[in-house]
């Protein structure tokens, strides 16, 4: 019933030439996504900036939001910058309501998000 979560990792160059890791999620982000989401997070370095791409995600529930907060916890420990793009307007609203936007900027697309890192 839950759409399996797939996470791929890309590297792109930021506006200043520094490498940015991009975690691209597909499917649902829910309690069953833990291994895919946090597993991918663990494989990216702890120093460089990270983009989270939700443009191919249709369903996120509170358990999925908790996984995103866990990534932000890790990032906060090392001062790692994180930005988010590709959320639907509804989930932009939800992420703002729960306070995620305080720790990761919410942007409409990848270039806009990358330019903030």
């Amino acid at each position, binding site marked *: *019933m839950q759409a399996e979560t797939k996470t791929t990792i890309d590297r792109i160059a930021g506006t200043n030439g520094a490498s940015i890791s991009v975690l691209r999620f597909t499917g649902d982000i829910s309690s069953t996504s833990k291994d895919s989401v946090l597993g991918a997070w663990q494989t990216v370095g702890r120093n460089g900036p990270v983009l989270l791409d939700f443009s191919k995600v249709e369903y996120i529930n*509170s358990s999925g939001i*908790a996984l995103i*907060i866990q990534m932000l916890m890790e990032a*906060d420990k090392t001062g790692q910058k994180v930005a988010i793009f590709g959320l*639907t307007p*509804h989930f932009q609203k939800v992420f703002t309501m*729960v*306070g995620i936007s305080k720790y990761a900027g919410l942007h409409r697309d990848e270039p806009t998000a990358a330019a903030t890192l």
Partner: protein
Amino acid sequence: MVKTTGTSVEVRLPSRLGFEKVAMGTAASVAALMGFPAERIEDLKTAVAEACINAIEHGNKLNEKLSVGVILSASDHELEVKVVDNGAGISKQPPAPDIDRKVHGEEDPRGMGMFLIQALVDEAEWVHDSKGTNSYVRLVIRLDKENE
């Protein structure tokens, strides 16, 4: 437009995570028939999903022999959704989530469900049953909210 006033739709879900999406889809279909705008339907879908997840996980404790009832009742100006489980319900509301405490590891990163429900619908009421047979959450969204 299909006449929806006075109609009731019921769905029974197994207590298995993922089946909240069946309730989401049903609620979205009824809300669309009533003429709710897309933005409000998205709010309702998330609130119904979170209510069903709570019922599956905390009310029925993932016991697949128990089902979660979802009853949608349409009237002229509002849609009421009751999500019924076999748990004892909650006797008091948990505190509002604090993102700073969560990010700093001082609070469980989970526990957003009830907050989201309250934030996304016009009315949310938790009714607990000490016998543990008929606790429910009642959600209401109103058609005229965007005109207020």
